[in-house]
């Protein structure tokens, strides 16, 4: 031990051995120990902070790829061509409006129409009865029969959780029942009839649409020629060939500009409104479905070519009779994946099948997860999301129960009980186009005349029907500047830096290195182990001998003796001559050491400490 302390490169140990005076030695031991403690603490700190990331933002000015721009009409299908499918439903809806609100007809008429109703025998109200409640009294007027009846089952308030609807006299809602077990019903109430009617209509609408094959639906919706009047990109004309059709379940036919489907992605090398995409859209307000959508215009979304456009979730709405200019600013971010943060690079490690044919995103995962749960528990797929393999969309005929099931499931999903939010992780890298939207009047009053005339000519058909400016929307999407901001996380620490920080700590407190650590291991484990082993061996041997000779009480004494004079002989035995000499050399000097002033290089440094402590030690010595 002493040998180690003297010969080690670590500074403290040597001090301990070399110091004279008990107090000083004690001080040194304390200091050394605290230094060791400090080192351990700091290194632990370093280790804990190892998985931290630093963020760097780079800005690069360069030619930028133009994003894909998906444009939809807010109204999914031409109302005129949907008549065949929806006429029944619309009739019912109108009747419902009449009965509840006296819409469009007088009161006397209402009563008559109610009378007619019973004979008509509507399917829609049989499926989902629309109810009017009176004062939370748990009685409701059934629209169809006009009877009042007691409502049982749980009541879900879609709106009333926020607004205190206790004062409102009438609440309207609908009831969904489990078809297998009719006593189990869920009641959805709305404080406003607008929401109730729309929600109710939407349910039926989805039902009907789920039965129509995709090809038919695409035909029912708008064609590229219908939607796009003019197109201009980067100073050049473009036409419908630059757009890719994309059928969205809720928005019908959408058209994606620069979808990269033919392998080339357009890019812009100049910023500014002239060099972006300029489109004039034909909205055709007259052909809107009055119950399904209540606003007019178009929806656009700017996204990456590989991303699925969730236009219903994050689309931007475009006003008619206005020029909407959208300036983009491009930001790309990349996070570090495990172990730095909990994100996924490709989505391959997420146990949810990607139903969309696009690259992973959190939104895709959540929707896919919900759809999967839907198929599992309801047996059919929800209309707004793509179909998993082997499943089909829900409709009454096959799954009379699906609406109840869907609402229940949706409730769970929102309350995070399905576990989707836990399974799905966000993607590590994403591209973002920050949009600055502003609107100007278009066409201006003086140019309106010629503009509409020329655009009508462009439309090329029905020249007699002059376009109305409320049917048109002008859209400009352009890069504000070609600076791409790239926000990336970099590991703040690499192994190299960690090691050098360790080294710095070790060096600062104890002037120690890995060599010291190895020394410690060597001395304290290997050497002491061998010493202990040898001692045991010798003791055992002695004991054996003792036992062999006679069982007298001399053995322990001998053992003690052995132990006292042990260290050196053992070392000599164990280690070979050089070690021996090295070991032996300091020893002779050790004995005179207390007498000779400590010839240590550290003396210079610690002089002040010495002078202070000297009297103490002397006193201690005298005592």
């Amino acid at each position, binding site marked *: 031990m002493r040998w180690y302390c003297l010969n080690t490169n670590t500074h403290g140990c040597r001090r301990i051995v070399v110091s004279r005076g008990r107090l000083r030695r004690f001080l040194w031991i304390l200091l050394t120990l605290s230094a060791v403690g400090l080192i351990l603490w700091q290194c632990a700190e370093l280790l804990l902070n190892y998985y931290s990331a630093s963020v760097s933002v780079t800005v690069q000015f360069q030619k930028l790829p133009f994003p894909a721009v998906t444009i939809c009409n807010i109204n999914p299908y031409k109302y005129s061509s949907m008549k065949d499918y929806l006429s029944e439903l619309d009739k019912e809806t109108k009747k419902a409006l009449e009965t509840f609100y006296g819409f469009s007809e007088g009161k006397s008429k209402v009563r008559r129409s109610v009378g007619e109703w019973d004979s008509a025998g509507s399917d829609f109200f049989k499926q989902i009865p629309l109810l009017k409640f009176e004062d939370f009294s748990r009685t409701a007027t059934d629209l169809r029969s006009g009877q009042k009846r007691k409502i049982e089952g749980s009541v879900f308030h879609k709106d009333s959780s926020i607004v205190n609807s206790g004062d409102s006299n009438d609440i309207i809602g609908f009831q969904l029942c489990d078809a297998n077990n009719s006593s189990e019903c869920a009641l959805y109430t709305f404080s406003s009839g607008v929401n109730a009617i729309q929600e109710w209509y939407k349910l039926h609408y989805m039902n009907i649409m789920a039965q129509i094959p995709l090809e038919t639906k695409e035909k029912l919706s708008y064609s590229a020629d219908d939607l796009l009047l003019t197109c201009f990109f980067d100073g050049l004309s473009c036409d419908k060939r630059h757009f890719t059709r994309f059928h969205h379940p809720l928005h019908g036919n959408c058209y994606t500009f620069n979808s990269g489907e033919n392998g080339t992605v357009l890019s812009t090398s100049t910023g500014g409104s002239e060099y972006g995409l300029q489109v004039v859209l034909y909205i055709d307000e007259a052909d809107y479905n009055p119950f399904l959508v209540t606003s007019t215009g178009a929806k656009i979304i700017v996204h990456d070519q590989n991303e699925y456009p969730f236009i219903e979730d994050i689309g931007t709405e475009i006003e008619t009779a206005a020029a909407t200019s959208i300036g983009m600013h491009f930001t790309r971010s990349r996070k570090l994946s495990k172990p730095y943060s909990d994100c996924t690079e490709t989505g391959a490690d997420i146990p949810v099948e990607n139903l969309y044919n696009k690259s992973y995103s959190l939104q895709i995962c959540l929707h896919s997860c919900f759809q999967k749960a839907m198929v599992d528990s309801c047996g059919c797929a929800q209309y707004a999301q793509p179909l998993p393999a082997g499943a089909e969309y829900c409709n009454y005929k096959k799954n009379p129960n699906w609406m109840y099931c869907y609402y229940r499931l949706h409730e769970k999903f929102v309350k995070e009980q399905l576990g989707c939010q836990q399974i799905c992780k966000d993607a590590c890298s994403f591209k973002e186009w920050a949009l600055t939207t502003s609107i100007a009047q278009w066409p201006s009053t003086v140019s309106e005349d010629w503009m509409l005339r020329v655009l009508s000519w462009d439309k090329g058909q029905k020249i007699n029907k002059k376009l109305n400016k409320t049917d048109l929307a002008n859209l400009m999407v352009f890069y504000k500047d070609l600076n791409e901001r790239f926000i990336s996380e970099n590991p703040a620490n690499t192994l190299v830096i960690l090691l050098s920080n360790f080294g710095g700590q070790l060096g600062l407190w104890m002037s120690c*290195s890995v060599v010291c650590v190895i020394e410690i291991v060597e001395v304290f484990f290997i050497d002491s182990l061998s010493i202990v082993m040898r001692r045991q061996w010798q003791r055992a041997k002695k004991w054996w001998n003792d036992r062999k000779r006679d069982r007298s009480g001399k053995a322990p004494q001998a053992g003690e003796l052995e132990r006292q004079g042990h260290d050196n002989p053992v070392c000599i035995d164990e280690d070979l001559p050089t070690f021996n000499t090295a070991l032996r050399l300091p020893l002779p000097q050790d004995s005179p050491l207390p007498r000779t002033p400590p010839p240590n290089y550290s003396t210079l440094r610690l002089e002040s400490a010495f002078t202070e402590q000297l009297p103490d030690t002397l006193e201690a010595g005298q005592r």
Partner: protein
Amino acid sequence: MNLKKYFIRALHRLQKGPGYTYKELLVWYCDNTNTHGPKRIIKEGPKKKLIWFFLTLLFASLVFWQWGILINTYLSYNVTSSLSIGFKTMKFPAVTVCNANPFKYSEVKHLLKELDRLIEAALERILQPTPGNGSNTSSPPLDLELWHQIPLVLIDEHDKDNPIILDIFESNLAAGGNETAAGNQTAAGGNQTAESNQTSEGNQTAAGGNQTSEGNQTAAPPAPANTTSEEKKYKLAVKLCSHQGSGNCTYRNFTSAAQAVTEWYILQSTSILSRVPLQERIRMGYQAEDMILACLYGAEPCNYKNFTQIYHPDHGNCYIFNWGMDEEALNSSNPGAEFGLKLILDISQQDYIPYLSSAAGARLMLHQQKSFPFLKDQGIYAMAGTETSIGVLVDELERMGYPYSDCTMNGSDVPVKNLYSQYNTSYSIQACLRSCFQNHMIEICGCGHYMFPLPEGVNYCNNEDNPGWAYCYSSLRSSIKHRQICIDSCKETCNDTQYKMTISMADWPSEASEDWIFHILSYERDMSTNVTLDRNGIIKLNIYFQEYNYRTISESAATTIVWLLSSLGGQFGFWMGGSVLCLIEFGEIIIDSLWITVINVIGWCKGLKQKRAQARYPDAPPTVSELVEAHTNLGFQHEDAGALPRDEALPPEPGTPPPNYDSLRVQPLDVLGPDSDAETE
């Protein structure tokens, strides 16, 4: 003196041979160095010696490898960014407001009269389904000279392979159509139509009065309505020729007639307007007192005189608030609309040029003080009849310059002449790109484009002086190569400030307040009791700081020289407990061994000579090293002992020559004099 002594000693040493061997040197070094490994090597037994030797080697190589990594990291000049968000008193941004329409139509009417009549007649012909409705019989003859400089043509694509190109004002259009039908697509076909244009032009100019009747005759073929009810077969294109009547023509096709008409009108009008002197153009634009009706900054009233006028080619007269050119920039120390800028503008929509800009509104932009507003890039619209509120967040990015990133502080190191410096504005990437384009344009087309500032001694392009400018401009504009050159030569600025805007709108004025507001504003402007304003012309703007008004991303170097040194030291310390002093020690050893080598080599050469001279001696005389070898061990032990108590506890064996390696080099030092003297002499 010392030097002489030193040389003498060195000479002696050379003659005598080295004081001791490599081995001694190494052992001594290992024993005395502060690096941790070597000491172990010599102090342990053979087995451990070996282990320690390899360990030391391993550690040394580890250290060097990691040093390499560290130095590489340093040389990659990484940066870390720090983000700060909050509110502080900041300079209010400069606000540029313009009218979307550059000139008052009433002022420029006399210049554009011919052009408007042309386009009206052309539209008439394109759009009218029935020929000869007699609407233009009374109008004076059209100025077809203007038309033929840049004609609009109609391309009949009934036959996809042989598109027929029809000039709208073609008198003998049937013939022209036949001719061009023979030709193929654009260039080849263009050749012939160009010729036919020439001939027809002669006809028309000669018989100007007849033109209308001829026009009526030929109006039938371009009228598309009858034929294109199911599919659009006619396209409008702008024909651009390098010289009028020359064969080198291209057709800029447009899928939409509206686009074609606008493009054509812009080309024509820039040609006309570029000949108008700047003073005149400023006069024709909107005047500050007409446009800015009310202004309030915080609680302080301001008026149109607080705005700096600047002429912007796209939007005519623009007015900049708080540009900071002459006076100090205003600070805003409170968030919220109360403390921002409130403006009421009049854009007088009735006075718009009908064909030039179809969108109506004010164009505004927030930008830094002393920078040029590039409204086409960064500007936003404000709609008439609304109140537009703009919450501002200043998004700053402060970057380190070279070598961390390739950006420029003030644009002085960019090889493009900044044409916008005549406005006294700071460098920006947009200014650089536009200057670059204009320079190319002047180089290739010989004249400057109207939209960009001019360098000295160059004129704007117009149809009279530069007949082929439109062709030249259009080819240059679509040339990817030229764009790329500009992108490559321009650098972004290191300090990038953006104003993130949260825009919201409401109808203004409300129906109830409409009357009195219009009345007051009209009265203030025109000093009359008549209401001269209406909903279509009036705009209210609120521009203010948001609650958090700045987001600053500033870069700092991830790796500094201090970082590098401490990491290097940490590595060296971690593996070997070494420091710079150890490196110096090592260097010393190398020098010493070199010295030994030199001495040895000289000795060997001498020995060779001697051998040759006195071949009878079979062996070389014993070297000093051999002699000294006898007491290496002793010396080593002694040194070891002496290492600890260096000063007083001198070894008890004074007789043996201490293998003091310092003697080799340190002769001039007199401290160790006795030893070395004893040895050398």
